């Protein structure tokens, strides 16, 4: 008996299980290009520096992907980041700048971010507004609050804060511990029941509701988690810049969306990968550093970065198509 020619696998295809594979490929190519343009850029120190700068975007992209999984979107992540940034910086200053003040402020910051996320969830899910415009609006509100907390950029944080962030433990840079923690977080999250429910909601909201899933709660939770991780991103930014800035994150919002897409997650929801989003953030970081090292003159850098992101997006699409054939 001959098997029909299309004998389909009884398993998920490799790509369905690891949707971040194209992103990994692009990442490898970019590493190579960076190495060619400037061999020094591949040194341990340079990689550490790159991670230090783009760790915040990694968290932000992972945060964004949770919301995207349920086929929503959060255009306020950057504003949440800014708000948490200034809240933490101002609070540390007010509490006197000691070690416990720093810790307490960080906790409060994470709480503020989570609350901002819950607020988003309530606005989008509770009031049934379109997420794209609703979070655009809440983002402006958060920016307004941030400007009220700290009207102008400045106000340095205590040395201990950025020394830790930029320092080493057991000869390994601190940021790599954070990366490892992020990896662990992702590893754990994809194994929760919640993520299956979240994906089901993003896949087909009506079907999920009809299956008896608490759709409202699931979506609000995604916004809350997104806010919380955006707050962690804010802590990374503080570690990197060592000061408060009420608009520091605003430009990062759409970068986070781009990172999510680069990582192989569909904006239509229902499938994707958080690890991919983190890789997507690194891709954006490497693109920017490549454009710098390739010696593009400063007035053309934005142009080159934009084109490079487009190329990376197209490469992702092409690789995906190849693999799924």
């Amino acid at each position, binding site marked *: *008996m*001959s098997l*029909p*020619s*299309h*004998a*389909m*696998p*009884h*398993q*998920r295809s490799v790509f*369905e299980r690891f949707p971040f594979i194209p992103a990994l490929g692009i990442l490898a190519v970019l590493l190579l290009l960076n190495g060619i343009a400037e061999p020094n850029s591949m040194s341990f120190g340079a990689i550490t520096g790159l991670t230090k700068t783009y760790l915040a975007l990694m968290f932000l992209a992972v945060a964004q992907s949770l919301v995207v999984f349920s086929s929503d979107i959060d255009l306020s992540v950057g504003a949440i980041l800014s708000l948490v940034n200034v809240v933490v910086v101002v609070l540390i200053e007010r509490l006197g700048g000691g070690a416990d003040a720093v810790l307490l402020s960080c906790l409060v910051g994470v709480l503020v971010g989570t609350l901002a996320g819950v607020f988003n969830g309530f606005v989008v899910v509770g009031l049934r507004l379109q997420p794209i415009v609703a979070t655009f609006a809440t983002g402006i509100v958060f920016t307004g609050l941030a400007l009220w907390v700290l009207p102008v950029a400045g106000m340095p944080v205590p040395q201990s804060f950025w020394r830790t962030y930029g320092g080493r433990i057991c000869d390994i840079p601190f940021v790599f511990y954070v990366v490892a923690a992020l990896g662990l977080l992702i590893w*754990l999250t994809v*194994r*929760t*029941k*919640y993520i*299956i*429910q979240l*994906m*089901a909601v993003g*896949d*087909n909201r*009506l*079907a*999920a*509701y*009809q*299956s*008896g*899933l*608490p759709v409202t709660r699931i979506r609000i939770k995604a916004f809350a988690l997104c806010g919380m991780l955006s707050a962690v991103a804010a802590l990374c930014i503080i570690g990197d810049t060592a000061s408060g800035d009420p608009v520091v994150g605003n430009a990062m919002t759409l970068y986070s969306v781009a990172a999510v897409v680069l990582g192989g997650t569909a904006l239509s929801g*229902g*499938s994707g990968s958080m690890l991919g989003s983190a890789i997507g953030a690194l891709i954006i970081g490497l693109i920017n550093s490549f454009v710098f090292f390739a010696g593009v003159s400063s007035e053309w850098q934005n142009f080159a970065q934009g084109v490079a992101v487009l190329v990376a997006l197209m490469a992702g699409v092409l690789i995906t198509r190849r693999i799924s*054939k």
Partner: protein
Amino acid sequence: MPRLRLEGVCKRYGATVALGRGDLSLMPGEVHVLMGSNGSGKSTLSKIIAGSVRPDEGVIECDGSIVTIPSPRAARDLGIAVFYQELSLAAHRSVVENICLPGLGHARGLFRNRAEMTAAAEPFIEPFESVLGEGFGLDVPVGRLRADQRQLVEIMKTLAARPDILIFDEPTSALDRAQVECFMAVLRKLKADGKSIIFISHRMDEIFEIGDRVTIIRDGETVRTSVLADTTMEEILRTMTGEEATGPAAPAVSAAVKTPQRPTVKLKVSNLVAPGVNNVSFEVAAGEILGFGGLHGQGQSAALRALFGAAQSRSGDIEVGTTRLTGNSPRASIRNGLAYVSGDRARDGVIEGRSILENTVPIYALKNHLFVASPRSLGAKAQQALEQLQTKYQTLFHPINSLSGGNQQKVVVSRWLMAPPEVMLLDDPTKGIDIASKAELFRVLRELAAAGMAILLYSSEDAELLENSDRVLVFNNGRTVRELVGDERTRYHLYHAAYEAA
């Protein structure tokens, strides 16, 4: 005491009355059939019991006490599970994940346990083991499955909730006979366990096979409940349509008008090879309806899709009339006079979120090279096409999702009737369409055939296939194994041919 009782349940959507008066009592250990034509309110009634649609009026009693069912979750807590006509599956999730999804929140723990979930799903997959077909697997995303396989997953998902009251809204519309038999065995077992079942189908034979009582619903009102053993098909049909005159009872379609002289070949396929199709050759004459038979997934749909240019690759010779078909794309096929009607409307047919008008006219617009179209002139044409099949809709500008399942399917069919092609490829075209409209559809198709069209028909319902085809090609494993002509077109020969090589 009835397990579930509805009295005067009513649901309106604006000016549309989806369900005017729903009365129903469901006993333990009973299979209660709900019958009615397309748009009569069966799904609405089901969804009200399921908690996904809230009734405007009426009383629901569960085990003797009055209840409100505000959400599907509440229904679940009452021991109610529903098979949704349009399914409630997540396309990117695996078979196991979909089956376990409703129960996921109830189990303890933060993390999922793959092994546990598989173990939980397996007992519900097992009864269907022999009819799952190619490409089915525990870990396969549901979106990659065939329409009938997806329906089986929805059945398993319904069973996995371990409910006391089960509602099946057209669970068999894409299943073939072997699959239906497995399902019937499951239903009998549930019945013996004292579960209560509401069963909706447009297939008469199944209803008499499994049902105890039947409630007939007409224009949103439940008009009569009777014991199936004491009633006849004619009586049911008469009550459904409300016509007193005894018209043609069974939807008998006149056999093919004997083709005069030498028929002209309209479609000639030689050595067609495509994914799932293994070297298939045949000819269809103008005026002829050629049926594709056999068990599900033996290459019938795959061949139709390949002819239409919807398969990834294709080789072989295809001639439409005298022109050789070049280009493997639906666009090229449409240009060459092919049409493809799929029963998998959610995937291939319905343009989600757009109006009924927009869903009816695209092919007509494409063929007539309309760049600017006035809704008024197009509307008149669309209306005519839709009315031919007795499509029930409010206005052409309502979204397609506001239609009942069968009526959505009629829109998909009408799309092609508006601009009749040379060759019509019908891939389970009547999925969800009621008996009366089905007869009308085949009458229209016969007319079109008589005017020179060639028609290929695949149907998961054997009776429909045998009644309407002039010849039947039986498929097995991607090849055609037999041709049934003349008196051979019987169930016996069809089963025999379908199973002999399997």
